[in-house]
């Protein structure tokens, strides 16, 4: 008596374990694939729909791209204006500091002369 061991896959199906050998699995797979694949691949969009959607998508993509470009331009302008303000602000602070320093210096000189 010979004992033949075949590789099997055991799957719990309800309350029982159902065994499937690799050969059985391949047979099932092959049968289903040959029967179903042609029918399951048969859905084709009409060329009118495909063209129309393509146009809508490219219009939407262009619009999104333009909006992104506009947003980037606005960001660039805002950062330029911000940079300009900080430079002007720095100059103003420096001028104020200088003026204050001058006044303090002048009053100190007056006091020392007195």
């Amino acid at each position: 008596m010979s004992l033949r061991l075949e590789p099997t896959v055991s799957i719990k199906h309800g309350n029982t374990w159902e065994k499937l050998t690799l050969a059985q699995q391949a047979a099932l797979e092959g049968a289903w694939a040959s029967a179903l694949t042609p029918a399951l691949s048969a859905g084709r969009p009409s060329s009118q729909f495909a063209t129309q959607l393509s146009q809508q998508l490219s219009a939407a993509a262009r619009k999104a791209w333009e909006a992104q470009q506009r947003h980037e331009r606005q960001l660039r302008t805002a950062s330029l204006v911000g940079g300009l303000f900080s430079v002007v602000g720095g100059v103003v602070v420096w001028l104020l500091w200088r003026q204050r320093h001058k006044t303090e210096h002048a009053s100190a000189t007056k006091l020392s002369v007195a």
Partner: protein
Amino acid sequence: MWLYGPKPDSESEKEAESAEIRQLVARAKAEPEAFGQLYQRYVRRIYNYHYQFTRHREEAEDLTSRTFFQALRGISTYHDRGLPFQAWLFRIAHNLIANWYRDQSRHPVIGLDGLDDEMHAEEGNPQADLAERERQKELLQLFSGLPEDRKTLLLLKFVEKMPNAEIAKVLGRSEGAIKVLYHRTLLGLREKAGSEWLGGEDVFEA
């Protein structure tokens, strides 16, 4: 460039194709035209995916448009971190189908319209065996009655020829869970269809 023809089979062809897709995706983030090329590649497959669930041309068209518009909106944030573009796109389609199913359960209008036409159109052979067509119709009806996740699994496996790892990403499950679901689906189909359609295979008699 592969558009509507058969999908690439050899490993090197698949590798070349996925490299090309990666390049297109990178370009599509900056150039509107590149997204158009991605659309051309996938429109038929995405439409067919939706059609196999809805069996309704207008519904399939609507879901296809929504899939691509969502992809267009999301492509700037898409990164290939182990999730290939094709799996990402099918995941969008799958989520839309899941929502569609929820809506249909509230308003059930699903039919099996056009099964005959579809099979005639696919075969394109007037002398095709009537019995074979009947068998195919039965199998398609069985397929139509399957739960949504099992249908997706069979479509991605048999039609899209996706590996289990990629299917797992589309369905948001582990690879092991997909293997179990696949075997259960095969066993369930065998029970429902009987083994006559296996064409004389006697593997189940042993």
